[in-house]
């Protein structure tokens, strides 16, 4: 991809780019695919869905005990109530990080990920190194993300082998008692909801 920016001549397209163009032109020409649908799909996952959705769920769970209980017992319904539902989030489970237990999510077989609350997965989540190693050496992988866990913390790795999609409820950072849900959302990162990092601490808020 890089190195081609200076020249958009078709003769310089990579084999992969050409294959995608060929498929798109064949499928639209034959009337199997609506070009407007392609644009709407891209627009949805590039601009409308993302980890801000999950952050709203987490911040609400941090501030409303009843909502948190609902989220931990019937995540699909509790998240749908926030208006996040649908493809790749049809069946949700939320696992809670505490001082004693740290959860982290993977899909060793492919790249299953809760789209409605996190958007599309980052490249590293789909990559061979993460998928292969996090189940056998979760503490080592977490250290590479700068996440140090004490030896007495239980680590739970969730391998997404069914259509159940897992979201980590990160621990609420210390010193945030005076923050409201909108302020707390800013501390909830994508990585903290996958479980490879903790939520941001209050003093790192931008």
């Amino acid at each position, binding site marked *: 991809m890089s190195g081609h920016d200076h020249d958009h001549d078709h003769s310089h397209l990579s084999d992969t780019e050409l*294959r995608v163009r060929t498929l798109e032109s064949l*499928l639209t020409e034959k009337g199997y695919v609506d070009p407007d649908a392609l644009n709407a799909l891209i627009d949805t996952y590039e601009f409308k869905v993302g980890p801000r959705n999950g952050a709203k769920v987490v911040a609400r769970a941090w501030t409303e005990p009843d909502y948190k209980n609902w989220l931990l017992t019937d995540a699909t319904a509790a998240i749908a109530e926030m208006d996040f539902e649908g493809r790749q989030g*049809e069946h949700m489970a939320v696992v809670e990080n505490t001082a004693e237990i740290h959860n982290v999510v993977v899909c060793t077989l492919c790249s299953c990920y809760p789209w409605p609350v996190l958007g599309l997965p980052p490249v590293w989540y789909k*990559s*061979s190194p993460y998928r292969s190693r996090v189940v056998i050496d979760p503490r080592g992988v977490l250290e590479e993300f700068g996440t140090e866990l004490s*030896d007495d913390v239980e680590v739970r790795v969730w391998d997404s082998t069914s259509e159940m999609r897992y979201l980590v409820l990160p621990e609420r950072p210390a010193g945030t008692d005076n923050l409201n849900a909108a302020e707390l959302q800013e501390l909830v990162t994508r990585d903290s909801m996958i479980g490879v990092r903790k939520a941001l601490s209050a003093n790192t808020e931008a």
Partner: protein
Amino acid sequence: MVDGVHDMGGMDGLGPLEVEENEPWFHAEWERRAFALTLAAGASGKWNLDKSRYERELMPGPDYLTTSYYEHWLYGLEQLLLEYGFVNEGELASGKTDPKQPKVVDARYLEGANVEKVLRKGGSVLREADLTPAFSEGEMVRVINRHPLSHTRAPRYTRGRQGMLDRVPGILVFPDSNAMGDGEQPHYCYSVRFSAAELWGQDADEKNFVYVDLWENYLENL
């Protein structure tokens, strides 16, 4: 194909973990198009998600390990489109439509105006069935050591291993049959908790556990 390189949990030596800060949603225009084409063509209803995962698993191992994730998707999509007659090899090679290629009948057409509604609806795999779960929460079970030559969602690292049944997500469509055109065959799926020592040997950290969703057909009593 079940023991293909996609089933990589527990392997080592697959390269360094590279984390890109402030990563964009897509890294190139072709990734956007390959992603959207996969979803739009999938909306034809001619194949299911399990089948499309299976097609990506059929990518030759050396290629799978040296290409990016959207290249896996592109490979899988081409194979599906060929198999179901949306395109033929000549069309893929030339980029020109072949008038002799028969039209696929009854393919659903996802209109741009319906994208939001269709995504929001999703595709539940939860099914109602008059079944009694064979196992109950807290029970110890073992994953049957089976190596089918077809699609499965029982990772290799769990086979022959025993774990504790943690919770019961419900009666779900069975990917192994659904991917192979043998119907949904829904039955109970369980979340099973494995100790790291059971999976990775006696030197593993005793505070580490792996939870895997496994269908009843994968499991046996101790």
